[in-house]
């Protein structure tokens, strides 16, 4: 049975690093994996999406509408934007962090104040995670991604992998302890 995970966020938030660690762990667990990320212009402050599929044998790299088992969103309205991709009874994990896009900053569009409330009414499995706040508290906003990885590992029960050990392959030595703390913090959040 193939599982589909969608990571969404804003260019620069570290979705790509999270997907690298996640896929390495899934590979260690013996799964076949396809991961798809489109980069290019979207790096410049636009919406970024990473699609991860794992199972016994995976063909297509992409995830269509209503096909995601889990969505992890690094930003509030990006969760809203990705919602059509969530499968019925799928899991939505979102940071409540807000990043204003240029149309919002210039007053051409409004940032919705009720994004989470309206999703909470519909989505049975909604986890609102203050990962950015936790990252700030730990001293570096850049560990938001690893905090969210901790949450995801807990939710999907991917405990067969020593994730914290694996982090050493992906983050600089001097940031390793901080990333491990972020992982633990995320894991403990739900």
């Amino acid at each position, binding site marked *: 049975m193939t599982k589909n995970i969608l990571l969404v966020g*804003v*260019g*620069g938030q570290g979705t790509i690093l999270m997907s690298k660690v996640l*896929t*390495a762990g899934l*590979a260690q667990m013996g799964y*076949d*994996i*396809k*991961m*798809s*990320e*489109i*980069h*290019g*212009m*979207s790096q*410049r*402050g*636009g*919406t970024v999406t990473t699609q991860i599929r794992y199972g016994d044998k*995976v*063909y*297509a*790299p*992409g995830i*269509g*509408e*209503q*096909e995601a088992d889990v969505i992890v969103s690094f930003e509030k*309205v*990006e969760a*809203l*934007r990705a*919602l*059509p*991709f*969530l*499968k*019925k009874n799928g899991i939505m994990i979102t940071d409540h962090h807000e*990043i*204003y*896009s*240029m*149309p*919002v*900053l*210039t*007053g*051409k*569009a*409004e940032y*919705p104040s*009720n*994004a989470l409330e*309206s*999703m909470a009414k*519909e*989505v049975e499995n909604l986890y609102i995670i203050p990962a950015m706040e936790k990252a700030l508290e730990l001293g570096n*906003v850049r560990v938001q991604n690893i905090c969210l990885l901790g949450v995801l590992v807990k939710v999907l029960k991917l405990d067969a992998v020593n994730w914290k050990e694996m982090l050493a392959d992906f983050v600089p030595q001097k940031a390793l302890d901080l990333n491990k703390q972020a992982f633990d913090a995320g894991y403990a959040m739900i």
Partner: protein
Amino acid sequence: MVKEIMSGNEAIARGAWEAGCSFASAYPGTPSTEIIENLSAIKEISSRWANNEKTALEMAIGASIGGLRSLAAMKHVGLNVAADPLCAVGYTGVNAGLVVVTADDPGCHSSQNEQDNRLYALLAKVALVEPSDSQECKDFIKEAYEISERFDIPVLFRVTTRICHSKGLVELEQPGEMLVKPYQQNRGKYCMLPANARVRHVAREESLVELEKFANTSSLNRFEWGKDRKLGIVTSGISYQYAKEVFGDDASILKLGLTNPMPKALIKEFCTGVDEIYVIEEGEPFIENVVKALGFSCTGKDKVPILGELNASIVRNALVGHKPQDGYSVDVQAPPRPPVLCAGCPHRGFFFSLKKNKKRIVAMGDIGCYSLGVGEPFAGFETTLCMGAGISGTIGFSKALEKQGDPRKVLGMVGDSTFFHSGVTSLIDVIHADANVIACVLDNSITAMTGHQVNAGSNKDVQGYEVPAIDLVALIRGLGVPDERLRVVDPLDLKAVQEAFDAAVAVKGPFVIVTKRPCVLIKEVARANVGRHCQVDPDKCVGCKACTLIACPAMAFKDKKSMVADPASCTACGLCMQMCKFDAISRVGE
């Protein structure tokens, strides 16, 4: 067997290494860029960022004739630039194997069109190989070199964004030995004067016949007979994965990997063995036309879209039917989040100034990060076509406006990398035509949009070796632009940019403006900016919103006051300070 998670681009580089390729060249372009970036890490392979795709391919052809297995990589529109050498080498053939990677971009993720470059294989009379995932990217590259040498033919290796940027597990093998096929003089083969070209054309047609026989037996093309023989699917590239996803392992599939020349005998055999035929392919009806020409009726582009990128859902909807709606929707809209110029981007100062001059200057754009200047609030230019057109287009456009009595002066812009790519020949045209235009080079010292590749203006090459940097301003002077018609300005110095525009509009004839400031995402620049940012004194801010006119993503306007909402991305470039008449913004962390 070691397995590693690799993107298609990483796997192509790995495959080239395993095949003993020892020369690689490319011009950066999404989605192809990471091929050379990965190859350049291997010291034994001589890797180069070329000035453009034409020079990249010509370098690789030279290496192939000289005796090295070589590779040239480019995005799909890059092959338009390199079409001239491609069509020539289609006749000459190779000495050591030559692979030309074309990375197509269905869906226009980061391109001006979604052309299907498989058609180039027909035009240039070269072999065409299409992998469908990372594993095949690696394996097929090795096969491509064998084909290239055995049939004396360049191989066009066609991938798409979804293959380049998707990752999957790849079984690694040992890197190959760097073979050298000794150079042998052969003017009849390599000098494409008419008399020789006619002879080579004959040789090519003959070799294509031989290659087609090979294609019918090659492991690159294979039957996957399923339980169900009522339906047969003919497919290639990424579409194969969508076919498997939608129709499962029971479906009968003809999976094509070597598609020029088409394995017609194989297609006939497959199509005869099934009742109904679906051709699933992205882009043009390249396979479908062959199936139909062989006398089979099939379902193809009448149902599968010719537009955009396919995915499993699109294929399912087109050929099986829509899934019932059973997801989530809420009535709250997510505000759009288009890509924008980064906080601290030097282009911002240029575009803000340009907007102030829009009554007297009309601008043509080009391809690069500054393409983002077309968006609100700058709406900085009227056209974006292809690399270099921002400068050469001004010559005709200014004539047209002049004949209509439009007094505005036409301005064209390119970045430093685009200038070296093809803007320099455009500028020669401007000068030689004595065109009444302003040519701007927005020099940020890097090829930024594709992720910071060095270019001819850099003093290091892709492998870190020191190389002579081309002095862009000296080059422009060398073309005969006198000092009074040339301004080199800091784009974040709004006064200097305005003065340059004033001087440019005041004279008739060519005027060149070079804006010089490095991209803030260059590592060294970013490092120097750590801890520096601007801050707004809320007591001094009167809420006039002047600073919001520069559309900096680090700033926000909340509770009737401006604020630096994202100090981590602010670089203290000071543009907002120049906008503020109330001295409310200052730099901290200096």
